[in-house]
């Protein structure tokens, strides 16, 4: 399936782009992270410690085991620092 992925803050900087569309068979966020990490070093650098990377699916925060079926957009970013 095709999936839009967006990146923010230092996750975006490590991966080197703000947005991309990937072709993947990953069933969960965790599988997607593993797939990208295996693909290129810049993903491995961004995802080296998933304890400090947050994930949103279709603009809602989820955990790594969230399923990707029927998902349009996945976002990866550091803990928020607004306010």
């Amino acid at each position: 399936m095709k999936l839009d992925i967006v990146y923010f803050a230092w996750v975006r900087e490590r991966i080197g782009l703000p947005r991309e569309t990937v072709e993947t068979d990953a069933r969960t966020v965790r599988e997607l992270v593993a797939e990208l990490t295996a693909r290129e070093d810049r993903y491995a650098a961004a995802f080296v410690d998933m304890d400090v990377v947050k994930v949103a699916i279709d603009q809602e925060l989820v955990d790594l085991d969230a399923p990707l079926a029927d998902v349009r957009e996945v976002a990866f970013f550091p803990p928020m620092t607004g306010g």
Partner: protein
Amino acid sequence: MVSRVQEKDFDVGHELAALRGDRVDIGALVNFTGLVRDTKGDLLALELEHYPGMTLKALQKIESEAVARWDLQACLIIHRYGRLEPGQQIMMVATASAHRKAAFEAADFLMDFLKSRAPFWKKEHTRDGSDWVAAKNADEMALKRW
């Protein structure tokens, strides 16, 4: 739901006046304004990035939660993004209630959730370089108060 995200500055006095309008059922109005602080005297600017598709959704969710928990007449969040210089306004929340306690608590609650649940990230540009502001563990812990 009147919360918004914007690059331009906001006028706190104007926002509070608009929130009050000519209502006579508001007894207490609490406002928090967050400003760019230059801790060490080396800050050139703060850069605020956000996730446009998610930001308003997140703010509205936080607002709905506050309105459900406290008896509020009105409630507002404004958050800026882009490049901000020391002393400039970053964001504000305002809460209006019949009573003081509700207004104070709801404003405190909005700030706690805004800090850890709204998709904003701050990067500091100092004379010595640039770096992302790290999230504080205390901010995540603060959510457990509510």
